[in-house]
């Protein structure tokens, strides 16, 4: 188990739930290959457990590997990206701490885009389908991925979830990652952009405390701005911290509750969706 956040990848489930099917749940281990014993281990007399080098005089040799630890995820992400580009879909990976208001913002976004853009959603949480149910209540198709002990979505989970979602050319795919400002930063899902959501109640220092996420993102939404009159928080300082970590980061102040900033956010979404629809097969720019 991860000593940082307690994650583990086994036991992730994907709940494809759409109109043509009754509720069903697919349960599978996400990384079955990780624990397969070497095919010929038995032939060489290796003990099944606790194998160690002690007392073993077999000659050793060196094997060069030179592979990035994220190589497999990156390959799966590239496959997702090709698929989304071919489908002309604008895909975003929404990342934040738990409680930043991601799901409320998503719900409000989908409601405002009704009749303008087709939207499909992939929801990532450790447990429950509550978020996917909230999305489905808006009429948008949503697939829930439960990561079990896992603290982030990976590209393979998203690839499997894509299979059950209707993807319309010129439409949006919004992937709501597990609430976590650390782990999802490293895992490319095949999105066009990571969008980081920071709620104003979280204070000014989050971009400096969790710089990897703010560096990985192309857009920051400062959510819950309707609460600013009640808070002792310097929002310009939060923005300056984010800009220090990532000078190219675009920022929009929004409130899912009051609707502040939503027009600018929706215009950004529509421009991205239009670009993705106009460039079939050529792909949408990967995050730097």
């Amino acid at each position, binding site marked *: *188990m*991860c*000593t*940082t*956040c307690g*994650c*583990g*990848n086994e036991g992730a489930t994907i709940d494809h739930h759409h109109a043509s099917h009754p509720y069903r749940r697919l349960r599978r281990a996400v*990384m079955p*290959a*990780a*624990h*397969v*014993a*070497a*095919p*010929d*281990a038995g*032939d*060489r007399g*290796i003990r*099944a*457990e*606790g*194998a*160690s*080098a002690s007392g*073993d005089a*077999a*000659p*050793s*040799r*060196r*094997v*060069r*590997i*030179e*592979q*990035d*630890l*994220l*190589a*497999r*995820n990156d390959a799966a992400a590239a496959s997702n990206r090709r698929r989304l580009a071919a489908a002309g879909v604008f895909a975003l990976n929404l990342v934040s701490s738990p409680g930043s208001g991601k799901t409320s913002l998503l719900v409000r976004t989908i409601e405002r885009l009704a009749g303008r853009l087709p939207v499909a959603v992939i929801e990532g949480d450790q447990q429950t389908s509550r978020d996917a149910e909230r999305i489905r209540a808006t009429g948008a198709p949503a697939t829930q991925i439960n990561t079990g002990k*896992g*603290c*982030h979505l*990976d590209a393979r989970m998203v690839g499997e979830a894509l299979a059950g979602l209707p993807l319309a050319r010129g439409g949006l795919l919004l992937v709501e990652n597990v609430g976590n400002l*650390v*782990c999802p930063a*490293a*895992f490319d899902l095949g999105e066009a952009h990571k969008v980081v959501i920071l709620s104003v109640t979280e204070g000014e220092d989050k971009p*400096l405390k969790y*710089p*990897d996420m703010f*560096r990985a993102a192309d857009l920051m939404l400062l959510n819950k701005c309707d609460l600013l009159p009640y808070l002792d928080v310097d929002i310009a300082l939060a923005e300056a911290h984010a800009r*220090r*970590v*990532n*000078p190219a980061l675009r920022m929009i102040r929004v409130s899912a509750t009051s609707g502040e900033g939503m027009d600018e956010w929706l215009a950004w979404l529509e421009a991205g969706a239009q670009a993705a629809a106009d460039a079939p097969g050529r792909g949408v720019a990967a995050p730097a």
Partner: protein
Amino acid sequence: MHELSLAENAIAIIEDAARRECFARVRIVRVELGALSCVEPEALRFAFASASLGSCAEGARLEILAVAGEGLCEACGARAPMETVYDLCPRCGIRPLKVLCGAEMRIRDLDVE
């Protein structure tokens, strides 16, 4: 960061190599880990021991080769050591340095039998 996911990826890469290169057991795994990679070496060590159980790398020693952070200032051209990914250029102080090295997290090689 989720060192367990990375450890599981490492085991998958090693298992692929075991099939390709026909070895049954790994003695040493050498991993390059950059100071700016946001991987905690001790957490990776712990996760690797857990993820390797039942694989050909069970019991293998994980050697972590630290790679120092170094960056380039795109404004003035200075090169400087980096402690964090958002270190400003120590010469002109205008922009964060661009990471040249220190972001590595890769398996370099294995000692196998």
